[in-house]
């Protein structure tokens, strides 16, 4: 963004050079678009309901974004490898269910049990995708059906106990500190975000994920045991889904087998809006965080507008299409 004395010699498409340079700048910094959309949404929501521009208002949006954001962490790392997790919502629900059941045994066992559900289901997904080469869409879809069946029958037998979350998890999911301003769930999300961003950007494992999604054959030929990477990444994704389930279950207080269902497709949408390619190889978790926040603010805005479920869903779908279209345009310009 220097002075306008430097004129581009080949401006034959009629656009002023400054505008074009701005376009190029956007292409290399696609997050700016997301930030602009987010700020616009916040301002529009503030214009509709002035009370929104306060700690409580923003807090509500962020709280809504937390389960989407954590589930979308699972989607993001899988989408980088060219995969997807349609069982994430069911894993989250199962983890919350086990945690609620084990709550009388103490917080450690409850949380441990919940996370174990995530890791085991993720490992099963990973074995299916990594070793048996089942299409990830189908593998996780089937896993979702299997988990639903298992938990429905277990709900009457071995997990027939309490469906109320223990106090510790309820504090973690719904409680706040500093005079009810900062929710604990946001702290959990922030820690997880730092870990994911660090893993993707600086660890060898993170680079392997990008490499696998970019060119699976080249990655294998250069010596990566891709099946091991896939099993581990699906286990991590299962773990994230379980964390999302615990936070959500803690906020709601009691669990049922429909707990996280509504968050499945928004979690995919958040990753997509955030610029992660569903074919693998490109994307960042910081983009996904912005995507989840956009969805959270959008939810607040639609609630304030008082529009029905019908308009909400139509707007929601249009925004997914519109933003991903914009993103593809920007990426093409790059």
């Amino acid at each position, binding site marked *: 963004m220097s002075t306008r004395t430097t004129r581009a010699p080949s401006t034959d498409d009629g656009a002023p050079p400054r505008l074009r340079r701005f376009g190029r700048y956007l292409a290399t910094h696609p997050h700016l678009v997301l930030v602009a959309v987010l700020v616009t949404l916040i301002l529009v929501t503030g214009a509709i309901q002035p009370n929104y521009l306060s700690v409580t208002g923003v807090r509500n949006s962020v709280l809504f974004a937390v389960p989407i954001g954590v589930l979308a962490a699972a989607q993001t790392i899988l989408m980088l490898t060219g995969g997807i997790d*349609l069982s994430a919502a069911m894993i989250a629900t199962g983890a919350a269910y086990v945690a609620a059941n084990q709550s009388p045994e103490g917080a450690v066992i409850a949380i441990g049990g919940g996370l174990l559900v995530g890791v085991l289901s993720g490992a099963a997904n990973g074995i*299916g995708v990594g070793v*048996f*080469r*089942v*299409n990830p*869409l*189908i*593998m996780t*879809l*089937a*896993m*979702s*059906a*299997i988990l*639903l*069946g*298992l938990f*429905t*029958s277990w709900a009457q037998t071995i997990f027939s106990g309490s469906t109320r979350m223990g106090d510790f998890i309820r504090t973690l999911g719904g409680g706040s500190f500093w005079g009810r301003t900062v929710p604990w769930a946001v702290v959990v999300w922030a820690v997880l975000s730092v870990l994911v961003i660090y893993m993707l950007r600086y660890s060898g494992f993170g680079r392997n994920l990008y490499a696998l999604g970019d060119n699976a054959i080249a990655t294998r030929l250069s010596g990566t045991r891709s099946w091991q990477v896939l099993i581990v990444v699906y286990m991590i994704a299962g773990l994230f889904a379980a964390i999302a389930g615990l936070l959500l279950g803690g906020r709601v207080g009691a669990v049922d087998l429909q707990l996280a269902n509504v968050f*499945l*497709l928004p979690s*995919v*949408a958040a990753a*997509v809006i955030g610029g992660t*390619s*569903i*074919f693998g190889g490109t994307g960042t978790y910081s983009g996904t965080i912005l995507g989840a926040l956009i969805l959270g603010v959008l939810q607040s805005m639609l609630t304030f507008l008082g529009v*029905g*479920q*019908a*308009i*909400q*869903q*139509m*707007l*929601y*779908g*249009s*925004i*997914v*299409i519109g933003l*991903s*279209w914009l993103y*593809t*345009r920007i990426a*093409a310009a790059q």
Partner: protein
Amino acid sequence: MTATTPSAIAAGSRRPWRRWVRRHGWTTGIWILFLALIAYYSTLIPSFGSFQVASIVNNGSPFVFLAAAQAVIVIAGGIDLGVGSMLVLTSVTAARLMEGQPFAATILIGIGILLAAAVLNSIVGWIITVSQVPDIVVTLGSLYVFQGMALWVLPNPGGGTSEGYRYLFTGSNTGIGANPWPAIAMISIAILAVAWWLGRTRRGLSLYAVGSDTTAAYLSGIRAARVKILSYAVGGSFAALAGLATTAIAGRGNATTFGGNLTLNSVAAIVLGGVALTGGIGSVIAVVPAGLILFFLNPILSAMGVDPNRAQIIQGLLIVIVMMVTGLLEWRRQRRS
């Protein structure tokens, strides 16, 4: 549309049955599995007659049509997550418009809905080709848009239709009866027509060409973008057919049914029916028994005395095993060539 190498053709001419098995093996196998399951089911329950057959065919027909919709789109190299909510949208629109109308009017409304659905879904296909956004993302959006439109058309469950219209899809004026033939006729006509179109016409074959290699198809003179939009239009009208059947079965519309689950069911059905998610491979004929089997597994398992919740588990395992087997077969074929 399997790529046949010269040696394979030579081998095929020497042993024609082998070639036939390679080409139609999956279709035959899935039909045999379906018939075997029906035969097994008939030994399980005390009275097996036309009432049971009618119940399976009638209630299974929306699944079959929806699976066919997904199959057409996937064969052309796409995937449509929105077909489920297209079913819901067309079903509630039909229920709202057809309430209290005479038979002839309901038929006209039904045809109108089929055409409107084709146009609506071709807009989705157009967005995909113009924007270059992956199919799965755009149709994730259309899944929500259609669901919202359905809630807007019919906020509360209700509406109605004519008796003759219900007879057309269910073989009875009340939706419950022992006459499976109208439903069988509807499925046969629709599926055979689309199978003939896909396998025997120039336009239909171009769907396979685009699905297996878009660039090659484009270079050989096929307008790939148009073919893609066409596949979405045909898929949309099949989803609408599923919606019309749903209205006929239930006699009313319900927009609170979430279309996403129906979509996932249709994806499972085409996988079981041997359609490759990578595009270009598969047959609509094989999707019919696959859709029926997925629907039909529940009554079989409950007749066997299995906890119905286990049915869900078995369904999931079945799909995974099928995918593993196809993966293995593909791997062996690659090794051989």
